[in-house]
């Protein structure tokens, strides 16, 4: 299978039900969408993330009822620096979708998804521990992998892979 170029034009992507659903909900919150290698991903405004997830979860046709994963990518020196990545899955339609939120380094925080999926707890703690991104209204935002007194966030790009910090 040869690679086809990614489609990022919202108009062309409208036949995807996820795109139509999110545009009908709040077009201003959808900062961008991409269909690449058979995977659909969105950029969502940071303040609208939780509402976007609720919309996808409660939509009667889509029913994105499961959260697969939360992780983060550090794009230093680009700005905004962090990209928090959410993978949703529907156990009904068996479709996957990816939501991404861009966060600046100075104020790296986003709403926690624990009110929707309790299981976001560990994933968000991991991102907090390894990247230093904060999740507002998280019930227990503590380090999970590293010791409690550890300094720095190991998965940031300015943290060396080996040697002294």
């Amino acid at each position, binding site marked *: 299978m040869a690679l086809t170029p990614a489609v990022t034009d919202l108009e062309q992507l409208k036949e995807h039900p996820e795109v139509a659903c999110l545009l009908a909900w709040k077009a201003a919150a959808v900062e961008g969408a991409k269909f690449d290698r058979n995977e659909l991903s969105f950029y969502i405004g940071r303040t609208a993330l939780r509402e976007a997830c609720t919309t996808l979860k409660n939509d009667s046709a889509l029913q994105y009822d499961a959260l697969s*994963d939360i992780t983060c990518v550090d794009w230093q020196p680009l700005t905004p620096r962090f990209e928090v990545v959410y993978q949703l899955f529907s156990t009904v339609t068996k479709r996957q979708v990816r939501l991404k939120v861009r966060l600046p380094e100075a104020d790296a925080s986003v709403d926690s998804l624990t009110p929707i999926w*309790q*299981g976001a707890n560990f994933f968000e703690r991991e991102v907090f521990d390894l990247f230093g991104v904060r999740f507002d209204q998280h019930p227990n935002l503590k380090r999970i*992998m590293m010791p409690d007194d550890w300094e720095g966030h190991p998965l940031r790009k300015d943290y060396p892979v080996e040697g002294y910090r």
Partner: protein
Amino acid sequence: MAEMTHTPVLDVAVDQPLVVNMGPQHPSTHGVLRLLLEIDGETVVRMAPDIGYLHTGIEKTCEAKFYQQVVPMTDRIDYLCPMTNNLAYCLAVEKLLGLEIPPRGQWLRVMLNELTRINSHLVWLGTHAMDIGAMTVFLYCFREREQLLRLFEAVSGQRMMTSYFRIGGVAVEPPLDFFNRVKAFNDAFPEKVDEYEGLLTKNPIFVNRLKGVALLSREDALALCATGPTLRASGVDVDLRRDLPYSGYENFKFNVPTSTVGDVYARYLVRVAELRESQKIVQQALEGIPEGSVKADAPKVVLPDREKMKTQMEALIYHFKIVTEGFTVPAGEVYQAVESPRGEMGYYVVSDGTAKPYRVHMRSPSFANLQTLSKMCEGRLIADVVAAIGSIDIVLGDCDR
């Protein structure tokens, strides 16, 4: 005689809950899991899992390696199913590259993945039964596991850290007698499962320890991001092999065992049924394995055969280039999820167009499934905690990465 006086040994109020450490060096925690139990008598009031003892920073290390050098790292994440991790990573990178694997390679991958699932479930069954007190089953399970490890050794040279899959296929064609040996194992296996079930499924001691214990409702399982047998035993019919087929799984016929009960016994039944289904898939893979190459025809990605390297100039050049500078992968991002023995094993790989991955993230099933433990155990007896840990089948290497 002087009146007897009683001095209290401990000066604590008795109505306060007691906090007990379970693990990290506890035989029933299946590795280095530490549980903080707040107990009232024999009842667990609150529970908080504490992990990170096996955190080795594999995700960070991957960023400093060439794409092909990451494969051996993936073995070490979930050390009970190395091939599943290999597969998820290789599929993710192949998706980034737009690379198609020849049918023989795909079928071989499926066959080995199912043998790995049997291997992993056998370790689970043996240790879980031993936690409950059934020693014999452990010995039986490890008897069959030994045969499987020998099969893995035959194919990859390693018993556990196989690293047999490559980006673009598998390392080498398996040895000549390999398929006969798999067939011999596979044909005899259903009887062995009967043997385990004969010892456990209707054993009153075993059943009484498991039935109605550590219940997890369908809603809680979904809210807590549970996947795999833990989710299926709570009544959600999801299996990524069937729902989002990868590596040619759409060519195989198998059932997805589920249960609506959601207790430890239901999870036991689901996994034992999965053993039988995996055996059927291996059977189909053996019968229908196509002829052809096990590697994709992509000289810039796949290492050439040794024979060609000795006779052809281009092959030698490609070999040198791949080994010394790696191969570049077009920029982009993919999330490839596969059904590991424990649940959804997902690899999120981001490429910036160079020969080293910009970011590799593993969504590990043990990490997510561990969150269900508190829900299962709170309000129940300490003895049930041991049964509950066994029933979610965690691997701490997978959990901490």
